[in-house]
């Protein structure tokens, strides 16, 4: 090991990293938001299913996507509190005494809020939590980036080699927009519980 060289911990992105990368997710979220906008302001004659309320269907789509996003983000962290705590600590935003608690609670909160959103049970509360989480993530990332701290987002995969950038912040803001729509929409389809 001449000069102590090792493999680059940040480089070498995998295919999954690329697919779940910030540009792809930003683009997908933008497309979803545009679809929602089209359903809201588009002329009625262009609507594909005559019996379906386009606005309500678009709200439902966003709600379910938000739910799956949260569940997907939580799965890797659920049994890996130590690693996630380190990731939370690396943001250097939270008080150090709160970091372990956040590392334990946040993945479960994401999981249950995601399930609630996807199933439409306690939808308003879950969507509100989604918005709060996205706001916190966007703020924390901005704080870290503004202070020159280089970190892995650890948003979906704690082993991801992807370094957080301002595009990650934009992604979180777009997610926040989706969550806000899911929160404020009056009614959605396929809601199992009290909507």
């Amino acid at each position, binding site marked *: 090991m001449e*000069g*102590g*060289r*090792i*493999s*680059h*911990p*940040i*480089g070498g992105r995998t295919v999954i990293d690329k697919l779940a990368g910030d540009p792809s997710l930003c683009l997908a979220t933008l497309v979803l938001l545009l679809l929602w906008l089209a359903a809201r302001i588009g002329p009625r004659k262009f609507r594909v299913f005559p019996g379906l309320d386009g606005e309500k269907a678009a709200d439902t789509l966003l709600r379910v996507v938000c739910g799956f996003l949260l569940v997907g983000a939580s799965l890797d962290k659920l*049994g*890996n*509190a*130590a*690693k996630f*705590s*380190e*990731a*939370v*600590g*690396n*943001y*250097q*935003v*939270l*008080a*150090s*005494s*709160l*970091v*372990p*608690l956040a*590392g*334990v*609670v946040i*993945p*479960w*909160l994401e*999981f*249950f*809020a995601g399930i*609630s959103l996807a199933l439409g049970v*306690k*939808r*308003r*509360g*879950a*969507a*509100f*939590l989604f918005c*709060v989480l996205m706001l916190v993530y966007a703020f924390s990332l901005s*704080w870290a980036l503004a*202070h*020159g*701290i*280089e*970190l*892995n987002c650890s948003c979906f995969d704690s082993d991801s080699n992807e370094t957080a950038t301002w595009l990650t912040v934009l992604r979180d803001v777009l997610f926040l927009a989706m969550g806000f729509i899911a*929160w404020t929409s009056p009614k959605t389809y396929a809601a199992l519980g009290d909507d």
Partner: protein
Amino acid sequence: MEPHGGPDRRGLTESRDRRDKAKTDGVTMAPRRSQDILKKVPPGSRPLFWKKSFRQAWDLLLFSAALAVLFNLLFPYGIELKTPAPKGHGLMDSLKTRRASGAVSYAGFKPFPDRPRVSATPTPLPGEAEDVVRLSLSGAKNRFDRNSSIFLDARPPEEYKEGHIPGALNFYADDFDQAAPQVLPLLPDKNKEIIAYCHGSGCELSILLARRLANLGYVHVKVFFGGWPQWKAAGYPIRSGEEP
């Protein structure tokens, strides 16, 4: 006849009439709030939007937190919630009074402290470097411009002589015990921010140095992963020779 107070009062008057009639008939009526009647909100309607959101969110939060703590207690790889996590220049930390004594750094952070049930946890590999705070090029340059941090060059002395960041002290990580007596006296303040760097992102010397310093009680140790190659490529000031 128009009731007193205009048309908006009609609902209240009607309600009072129905209530009086119910009282005479011996029927119990659910109380209705006057603002509901004025807004023509049917009885038993859903609570306010905000109230409902907060209540549901609070339920979910409590449920998740309770289950998370329980799972953490039962799960063999659970972490110690009372353990102070690594202390840094956090937003909330900076609001508190900084205390030097007993502070724990990121590099010394042990996710599984002295609890027997987590003793089998694998330690991170040296290359993973998840336990050190990394700085970007801009972060390192900002600190260099502000002269707010001490830069430590973890490369061998020969490479340090060829070129280094101005002001950086040479502290070859592989010869830590040999270099420590010369360099550590120059780092008396354990709260001062220290930035270690080496050959670049493929180098582990800076990580090793950061961990050793953190174990010695240095609180704010960070690693500039881009290191010397990135600094040099950016055209930032450099210096050669033995002098910092």
